[in-house]
């Protein structure tokens, strides 16, 4: 695995991660996202519907959280989760927790962390964690980590313990990794912890960077944990200490404005659970990320533009962001336009807002399928546009465009 950077603009690293997968044939552009799955399936989608999406990320993300309960089955199957799930030819990255489900706190010990499967809590020692990795057979995975520092006012002592434990887990995982046949060609990523305490973040970073890891996972930064300014500062300090040639993946960050901010702070990779969250609340991503090819016109457009987004709807989910529309709203009942004009996803090519509205109102399963396809397509389009903006020196225009929808909350 090798990260080839072509340029760095305003802190954003543009490049390609090459040599991925067992045969080393896959590559992933950065900044980019992994393909989010639950139990190795992109939510709501079968392989046929999934592959209506063009330019899927070459790296699929699975979690110990959704697979731990199937350890025995996977061990008997012997050929890893990619084959077990009938996945296409893709690279597998295995993280620990599912960023969508907040887990109850207070179950971390010095030697264990816990995940929640369909049958309840599963406690993991480093040994069991590694046995699960051997059963999953990912191409890359994060080592076991204590990231439970997202609660407000985590004490310094608690944060320090999280860093210590995570390093201890990393050392144990590294040791077991060497002994595990099934992981011979896999890369292990170290996890940077430290809550919102700069000192601890730096300590975690420096210590983790000393270990022979293939890349770095930035944990404990999800939206509930801290505000964007604090996050940005901490991440910048962290990435300044990390080797340039190893990729940096951040967990728990998905909202477009936060993505841009983290990319500017030196993050390469993100999860793609955000489109799924938008889907689950019956919403469709519609924020504009297209910039006019001519910079001058773009500025004029932006200044003279009338707001495309009207008043937020009354029955919106409290988690709704400015980047989406709520298709359950009555105003879409007879709206025969596609979800987003010009979008080439299956949903926008074949269906209209009124139909998706109807599916949501009648609680039909197809709503989830269509929204997932659209939201994933839109999100992937956003990342592609971000990379293009960096490549063409249009990052500021791009930022203005994407963030403009935030100012229109009436």
């Amino acid at each position: 695995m090798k990260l080839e950077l072509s340029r760095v603009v305003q802190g954003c690293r543009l490049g390609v991660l090459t040599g991925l997968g067992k045969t080393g044939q896959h590559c992933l552009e950065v900044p980019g996202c992994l393909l989010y799955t639950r139990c190795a399936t992109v939510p709501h989608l079968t392989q046929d519907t999934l592959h209506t999406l063009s330019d899927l990320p070459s790296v699929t993300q699975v979690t110990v959280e959704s697979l731990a309960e199937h350890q025995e089955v996977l061990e008997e199957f012997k050929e890893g989760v990619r084959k077990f799930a009938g996945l296409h030819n893709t690279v597998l990255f295995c993280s620990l927790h599912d960023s969508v489900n907040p887990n109850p706190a207070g179950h971390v010990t010095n030697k264990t962390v816990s995940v929640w499967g369909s049958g309840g809590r599963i406690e993991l020692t480093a040994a069991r964690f590694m046995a699960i990795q051997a059963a999953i057979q990912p191409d890359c995975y994060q080592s076991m980590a204590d990231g439970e520092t997202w609660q407000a006012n985590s004490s310094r002592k608690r944060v320090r313990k999280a860093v210590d434990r995570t390093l201890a887990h990393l050392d144990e995982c590294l040791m077991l990794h060497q002994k595990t046949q099934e992981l011979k060609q896999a890369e292990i990523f170290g996890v940077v912890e430290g809550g919102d305490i700069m000192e601890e973040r730096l300590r975690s970073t420096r210590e983790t960077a000393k270990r022979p890891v293939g890349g770095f996972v930035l944990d404990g930064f999800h939206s509930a944990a801290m505000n964007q300014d604090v996050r940005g500062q901490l991440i910048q300090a962290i990435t300044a200490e990390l080797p340039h040639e190893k990729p940096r993946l951040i967990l728990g960050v998905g909202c477009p404005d936060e993505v841009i901010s983290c990319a500017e702070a030196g993050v390469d990779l993100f999860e793609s659970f955000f489109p799924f969250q938008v889907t689950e609340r019956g919403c469709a991503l519609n924020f504009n990320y297209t910039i006019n090819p001519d910079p001058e016109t773009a500025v004029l457009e932006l200044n003279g533009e009338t707001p495309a987004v009207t008043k937020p709807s009354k029955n919106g989910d409290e988690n709704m962001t400015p980047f989406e529309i709520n298709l359950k709203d009555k105003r879409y009942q007879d709206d025969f336009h596609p979800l987003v004009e010009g979008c080439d996803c299956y949903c926008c090519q074949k269906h209209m807002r009124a139909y998706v509205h109807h599916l949501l109102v009648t609680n039909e399963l197809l709503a989830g399928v269509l929204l997932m396809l659209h939201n994933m397509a839109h999100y992937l389009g956003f990342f592609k546009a971000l990379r293009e903006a960096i490549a063409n020196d249009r990052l500021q225009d791009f930022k203005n465009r994407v963030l403009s929808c935030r100012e229109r909350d009436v």
Partner: protein
Amino acid sequence: MAAPVAANTHECECSMASLKAVSSAAHLALRIVAECPVSKARACTLTLPHSTVSTPVFMPVGTQGTMKGITADQLEDLDCHICLGNTYHLGMRPGPELIEKAKGLHGFMNWKRNLLTDSGGFQMVSLVELSEVTEEGVTFRSPYDGKEILLTPEQSIAIQNSLGSDIMMQLDDVVSSTVKGPRVEEAMHRSVRWLDRCIAANKNPDRQNLFAIIQGGLDAKLRKACLDEMTKRDVPGFAIGGLSGGEEKDDFWKMVTLSTDHLPREKPRYLMGVGYALDLVVCVALGCDMFDCVFPTRTARFGSALVPWGSLQLKQKQYAKDFQPIDPDCQCPTCRRHSRAYLHALFKSDTAAMHHITIHNISYQLTLMRSVRQSIIEKRFPEFVKAFMKRMFSSSEQYPSWAVEALQSVNITVNCVA
């Protein structure tokens, strides 16, 4: 050339009506490709406005303008040429005006092949409490806003005209097959009168085919009377209704075969609400061409996968480590890619598990009908039936007696060592 003259003067009125119906007949043509020389089975092609359908055919039910989690493209890829939408549900939400604006149900759900809509009658009686039937129509209380609604034959047809389905069903006076007594006769006669009102109300006879529904419950005399009356009307097709509602199978098959005995050969016969594999095969033998049922798609969502030897309840523990596909011989997308074990695991995490089984079950039903059809064309339908029974049941002692008798009645002997 002699001037056309009605055969008997008292038939004159009916002939005039049927002449008129024929001249403005909708685009439906049934071509009989093969007839089983032993039983009453037929293989046909049914040309409808949107595409051609091969029969015998199973029509999956997409109640609210969607096939429960699978896309229109996926349904097309399974080679489905006709599916159902429900007038009652769609009439409530989103309503006929909106669907008409969206260019009919085809436009609304973007389904380019054929659609069949039922009249709404069955749902009202089965789903809604305190519905009341009068000569005018069915009165019921809307479950969405509590308002009282009257569904008349004219209104049912008006909604179906807005939906723009290729085949529409008359509003019939539906009575449960377990009901006995004078109500059954009343309902049968009323259904005939409502058929005439539906025919008169159809604004689009040139592109929407209105089917009659034969009623009469489990009473042979009533059913025969209904057949006699309804076959006088020149409708493009006939459905056999009032069955598959919990009656004894012994009574069920006798009414089916009585009906097909008296329905015109050159028009399609649609047996409503039948979907279990065994029932499909037997009723094809008895002369039915078209079937619909929610069973295969509904049971899929509960994790039940249909196979030639019964069904697999994939949520059960025994499948946790079963690494075969649902059916090693099945060519559907689910069986080509996924194992029982994976589907078992996925059911704990994501809705996609349901979609996988839905695809498989629809494929199973459509493939079964295709195999039946092919066997009729190749003049080996009786052999097919025997092989089907052997695969489905572990021994001939297990064969349900009603099925054995029904098949025997059309000269197919399944339970002797041949």
